[in-house]
């Protein structure tokens, strides 16, 4: 299956700052997904990033808060902007491969203080 590398694995950030999370895949993929997992909760889809087009955001998530880049078929970034303590979560990157279904990275654990 696909191997996904996420950086950083964890970070502690000051409120009002921004953090960019990187997702690198060892295969070329069309669709990449970004999820948020709040403490003790399940996964919620933030947006879908297709190479060469603007990301599509789910209800409750906006581009100004969570800008996404998708420069090529193996890489994407998610930025969490103007952070507040409510943004403390695990952020996960995921890809879909026809044979292997959906694969997830190990996540970025963000704490905002």
């Amino acid at each position, binding site marked *: 299956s696909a191997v996904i590398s996420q950086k950083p694995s964890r970070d502690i950030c000051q409120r009002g700052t921004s953090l960019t999370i990187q997702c690198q895949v060892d295969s070329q993929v069309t669709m990449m997904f970004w999820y948020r997992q709040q403490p003790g909760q399940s996964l919620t*889809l933030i947006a879908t990033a297709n190479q060469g087009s603007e990301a599509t955001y*789910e209800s409750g998530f906006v581009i100004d808060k969570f800008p996404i880049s998708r420069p090529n078929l193996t890489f994407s970034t998610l930025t969490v902007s103007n952070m507040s303590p409510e943004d403390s979560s695990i952020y*996960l990157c995921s890809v879909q491969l026809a044979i*292997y279904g*959906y694969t997830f990275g190990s996540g970025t654990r963000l704490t905002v203080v």
Partner: protein
Amino acid sequence: EDQVTQSPEALRLQEGESSSLNCSYTVSGLRGLFWYRQDPGKGPEFLFTLYSAGEEKEKERLKATLTKKESFLHITAPKPEDSATYLCAVQGWNNAGNMLTFGGGTRLMVKP
């Protein structure tokens, strides 16, 4: 809107005590139902995909089944290393194409 409900939220079993986890779903046109295992501090690990009612899949002590309204993850003679959160998700459609909608998960603890 696709919805997924998992029960129970938490389950404690003794080693060797078999049980089942439930995943109820509503989706407009099921394209697949997925089971994942998630250990603390890690991303979800794929277990099974089921596509149609009546389908069953097995892997070691785990067996997943699917009906038109729900899926079950049966755990036979569990071991402490089976302790994890088990997530169920359905594949549906959004404006970007397809997407997964996750349930709240079942936290399983198996005591030796």
